[in-house]
């Protein structure tokens, strides 16, 4: 018996999400929630605006999560969370963690005013954005988080997205909030560590989670984790933290970045791209990665 090799499980064992949720196969956003709640524990209240997660949780009167959820309006994740925090404080609950949990559309686009307002006031909650790079709930329309080159139903192949993805971390860092991190469902230990760290900090904490969506990206459900890993390994989505808007730390140094085509070719949404377009995207990725290295003092 003693010779049996045992894998050590580094993630908390507590499960606050049950399997009876309504997500598609291979949904990255679902893994993201599972890991985030493992880190935060049961004393957490979620504010979830319109997004896939307002469906994934399950229809009234059911819920697949063992924490209270306030399903709020699309653009109000940050303003609702501000209110919940204030309300809890006034009724004497200073312990519970409040987390706004929104998609990229609810964060980069329609909710950015409320988010910027809350960050400027340094409201005391965690804002987690799971980024699947489009409005998936409504059927794969482009958001300002959709990457350059991608197909969506509102950026058809002939008019694929020509604009760059909005630099949400740059925007949030400009608010000088105490904690910002990127996280990926392919790196659960790193993600859990970041949520735990965020939990113990006061003020506005922003975590940007990379969450592949097989339905919207036209990728294989069993490639979800692989894609998330490739996004990090290509330098497309580096894992890093920004503290107080000034201390940038790269969490995972990639010695040899993989070419972006390895990442692109697994997704139908990039299938139309020609070599010269892929070269341009590679140059974009290189440029962005260098910028982040520089900010991290590397």
């Amino acid at each position, binding site marked *: 018996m003693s010779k049996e090799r045992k894998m050590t499980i580094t993630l908390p064992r507590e499960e606050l999400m049950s399997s009876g949720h309504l997500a598609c196969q291979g949904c990255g956003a679902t893994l993201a929630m599972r890991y985030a709640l493992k880190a935060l524990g*049961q*004393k*957490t*209240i979620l*504010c979830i605006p319109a997004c896939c997660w*307002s*469906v994934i*949780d*399950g*229809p*009234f*009167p*059911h*819920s697949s*999560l*063992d*924490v*209270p*959820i*306030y*399903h*709020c*309006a699309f*653009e*109000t994740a*940050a*303003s*609702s*969370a*501000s*209110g*919940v*925090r*204030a*309300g*809890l*404080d*006034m*009724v004497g*609950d200073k312990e*519970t963690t409040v987390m706004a949990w929104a998609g990229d559309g609810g964060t980069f686009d329609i909710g950015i*005013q*409320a988010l*910027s*307002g809350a960050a*400027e*006031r340094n*409201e005391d909650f965690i804002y987690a954005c799971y980024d699947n790079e489009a409005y998936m709930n409504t059927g794969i329309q482009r958001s300002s988080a959709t990457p350059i080159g991608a197909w969506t139903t509102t950026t058809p192949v002939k008019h694929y997205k020509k604009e760059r993805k909005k630099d949400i971390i740059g925007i949030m860092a400009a608010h000088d909030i105490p904690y910002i991190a990127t996280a990926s469902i392919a790196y659960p230990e790193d993600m859990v560590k970041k949520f735990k760290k965020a939990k113990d900090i006061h003020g506005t904490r922003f975590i940007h989670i990379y969450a592949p969506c097989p339905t919207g990206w036209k990728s294989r459900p069993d490639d979800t984790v692989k894609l998330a890993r490739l996004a990090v390994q290509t330098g497309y989505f580096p894992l890093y933290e920004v503290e107080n808007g000034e201390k940038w730390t790269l969490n995972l140094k990639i010695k040899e970045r993989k070419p972006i085509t390895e990442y692109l070719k697994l997704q139908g949404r990039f299938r139309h791209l020609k070599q010269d377009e892929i070269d341009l995207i590679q140059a974009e990725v290189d440029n962005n990665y260098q910028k982040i290295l520089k900010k991290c003092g590397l």
Partner: protein
Amino acid sequence: MKKVIMGNHALSYGAMLSRAQVIAAYPITPQTQVVELLSEMCANGTLDAKFIKVESEHSAMAACLGASMAGARTFTATSAQGLALMHEMLHWASGGRMPVVMGDINRAMAPGWSIWTDQIDSLSQRDTGWIQFYCSSNQEVLDTVIQAYKVSEKLMIPSMVILDAFALSHTYEVVEIPEQEKVDAYLPPFNPPYRLTPADPHAFGGLTSPDHYMELRYKLQKDMEKVPALVEETGREYEKMFGRYLGQVDDYLCDGAELVFVTSGTAGLTARVVVDELRAQGVKAGNLRIKLFRPFPFEQVRSILSRVPKVAVLDRNISYGHHGVFYQEVKSAMYGLPSEPAIFGFIAGLGGRDITRETYKEIADYALKHDRPEEEIVWIGVKK
């Protein structure tokens, strides 16, 4: 204690005495003094509340709702453009059964920019499931805020306490400020049956299938229908404790009248002066001021107006392509009654144009001269 205060400060005192715990608001003329005084009160400790200085009215209401869901008593105030920006969240408040109390200063909608009073901002929100009180004095504003919390929290339906821009918001009047202890005895702390707490986790407002949605709305309507009786009950209780009755409507000499002006807000006070003048000339006039507009006080309006041959409804608003809103509502309340009066609809005072004694005299002239209204809408004082 008596104080000379503006209507806006009557709202602030009402919120303070009600011990609002979370306030989230955004400034707009003519509401600003409401929140200025409240932030002062929060800063100097007169009021133990969190004031969230949000970046918009949409966020103001969203934050109030979050706080309400967490079990806190919440207050906000706005006007016109701000109320319109909140629209989505107004449905959220009533649909989610969150008893927020909000002050709205009735102001005309842009364009062109107008900061002056009319009622279209709040009347455009009549179908959002909020209780609406239209006030006509600063005392009534303060008292109604306190009563509104009592009614709202009992039924878990939000309330709007409404006052005219400038005519009330910026007008100073003597107001009796009730003692805190007595208000505490009248209004117990907010203790909702459900709230956001990890001790009893629920998901609120999630995806609701056609199997359930309709029942939730049916229940909201059924509870709305309980409001008039509850306003009556809490208004009498208020009278017992504070000496001022707070009702659904205000009847001035309607009994036995041949012509009744139906009004709302401050315009009603001018009507009374004209009622007295007409009576001195031998015309038996009266005034019915509608204070509770949502839910509509069917019973009281019917019982008072079915004894009157002619009713002149004054609207400081218009529903484009139809009539003035109060005119629509009074007609629909009276429709088909055996003693349905002749009901006339008048529009006056849009965008803050003064409603004067002359306005009512013109209205009285028209109504007395005609058996039935000859026009869908009679405009008073418009340069055609």
